[in-house]
């Protein structure tokens, strides 16, 4: 039996998320991943922005920083640079990370800053009532796109790779065991690690689009494919499928390490001059 309590601020329960919301499912996965890595609560800092998903930081008993909308990656950069011993995990929504926060996201990826970014992609702005997100599929309904969105969505993973991220993965709130492993890998990875998590928002994505809560999870189950499995498939079989799993991993200098070696260099030089 898995013990979540150790990682929870029970005083905040029950949480504010709607019935069936994927945020709770993902939070559990995150906790299991941390537990497996046996990282102490004290050594973790979770930083979130504003949104339903970003409320997660209120529930976990680690060092938690609930920041402003779109800015958690910038705040997290400060945390990590100032105290590299902390495992810094960013909790962010698709609107938070990719709409208002898109710039911080790509720049942290460029720097290969040692952050674990968990991007809760529910395809919508949950907190504010179901407005269009930069991930809402074209044609889907949102409260600011009642006739169906004309906006094309971002592929967050592709963007992260192009920006320079060195660990890029995608999971879903349905595939909890896979998600455990992807998050675990992301935390272990030294450098900018993204796990994009497709998660179900019943209230503001499902309902306006006439998709039931359970169907949202079924959709995740039926429309995704593990990238490993996909390797052995034909284009026809892959048609319309979203790939999950570890999509990209590479090796580049991590930013804090680069800074620290600069510091060492500079100080050695100064020492020599003294």
């Amino acid at each position, binding site marked *: 039996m898995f013990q979540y309590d150790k990682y929870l601020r*029970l*005083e905040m329960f*029950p949480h504010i998320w709607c*019935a069936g919301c994927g945020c*709770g499912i993902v939070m559990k996965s995150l906790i299991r991943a941390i537990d497996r890595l046996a990282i102490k609560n004290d050594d973790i800092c979770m930083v979130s922005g504003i949104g339903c998903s970003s409320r997660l930081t209120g529930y976990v008993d680690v060092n938690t920083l609930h920041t402003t909308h779109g800015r958690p990656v910038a705040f997290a950069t400060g945390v990590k640079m100032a105290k590299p011993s902390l495992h810094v995990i960013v909790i962010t929504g698709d609107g938070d990370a990719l709409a208002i926060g898109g710039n911080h996201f790509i720049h942290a990826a460029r720097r290969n800053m040692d952050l674990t970014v968990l991007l809760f992609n529910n395809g919508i702005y949950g907190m504010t009532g179901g407005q269009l997100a930069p991930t809402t599929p074209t044609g889907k309904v949102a409260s600011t796109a009642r006739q169906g969105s004309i906006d094309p969505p971002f592929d967050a993973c592709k963007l992260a790779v192009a920006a320079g991220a060195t660990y890029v993965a995608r999971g879903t709130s349905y595939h909890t065991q896979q998600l455990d492993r992807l998050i675990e890998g992301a935390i272990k990875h030294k450098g900018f690690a993204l796990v994009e998590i497709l998660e179900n928002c019943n209230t503001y994505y499902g309902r306006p689009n006439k998709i039931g809560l359970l169907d949202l999870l079924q959709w995740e189950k039926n429309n995704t494919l593990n990238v490993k499995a996909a390797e052995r498939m034909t284009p026809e079989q892959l048609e319309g499928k979203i790939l999950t799993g570890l999509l990209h991993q590479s090796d580049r200098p991590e930013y804090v390490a680069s800074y620290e070696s600069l510091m060492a260099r500079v100080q050695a030089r100064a020492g020599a001059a003294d």
Partner: protein
Amino acid sequence: MAKARTREEVLEIARDATKSYVSAAVTIEINDAWCKGCAICVEFCPKDVLRMTPLDKVEVVAIEACTKCLRCEQLCPDFAVVVHGEPGKSAS
């Protein structure tokens, strides 16, 4: 916003609201205070162990079928299902 509570108060409420279903191989606990009635656990239990009540809570109806696969526990967004026992080891 709900009234601010202490950890102890919340634990007590949760304990009071938790139903335990016990078999030789497995114990399943459902915390009615936190369960929001989403029915995810019911839907995705591969063995139809669970069922929604008319009051939109969950009850265990076939504990002997439980394989301890943990789908229900892992998918419950509200930390309202707990399955005790070694995962994967079926009771039968």
